[in-house]
């Protein structure tokens, strides 16, 4: 059980690191939102799942699961709202936008 938890957390950390690298490398707001989506929907959720598995199948497992579900349901709404605001206020993806 502990090894499964460690595996999940390390996998989540991999996605968190990749998401951060993407945040630095990608050229514009719209692409960076993809990096954030990678961080949210895979990195954070996998780390939370690992912690839940580490807790074992007790009440705490369910509690962490509720937080996981919240992250899963709410973060797409947040990134959609941000990107829509960016789109509506006239921002467009440009290749030559400076890093």
């Amino acid at each position: 059980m502990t090894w499964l938890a460690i595996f999940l957390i390390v996998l989540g950390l991999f996605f968190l690191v990749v998401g951060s690298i993407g945040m630095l490398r990608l050229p514009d707001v719209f692409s960076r939102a993809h990096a954030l989506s990678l961080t949210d929907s895979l990195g954070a959720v996998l780390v939370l799942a690992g912690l839940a598995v580490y807790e074992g199948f007790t009440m705490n497992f369910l509690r962490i699961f509720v937080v996981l579900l919240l992250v899963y349901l709410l973060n797409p709404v947040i990134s959609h709202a941000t990107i829509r605001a960016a789109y509506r206020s006239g921002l467009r993806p440009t290749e030559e936008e400076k890093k």
Partner: protein
Amino acid sequence: MNTFFFVVLTIITVLMLVYFYRVVRGPSVFDRVLGLNGISTKAIVLLVLIGTMFERVDMFIDISTGYALLNLVGALAIAKFLEERGASPK
């Protein structure tokens, strides 16, 4: 196991620094908002992690849930304002 958790905590904190760089340097306002969202997601994860380290998850879960919900409200409010306002006042 606690050492492992400590290593994970340190790594996530360093990653927060990356997002912080995006908040400081982001060319547009929306880059800053994205960076702030990344930091808040990591804060939620870190809270649960700290709770697991202290073996008091039930206490920290409440803050974590509150964080997640408030983060939604705050981010939606910011997005609405920026949408009404238009592009960044530069």
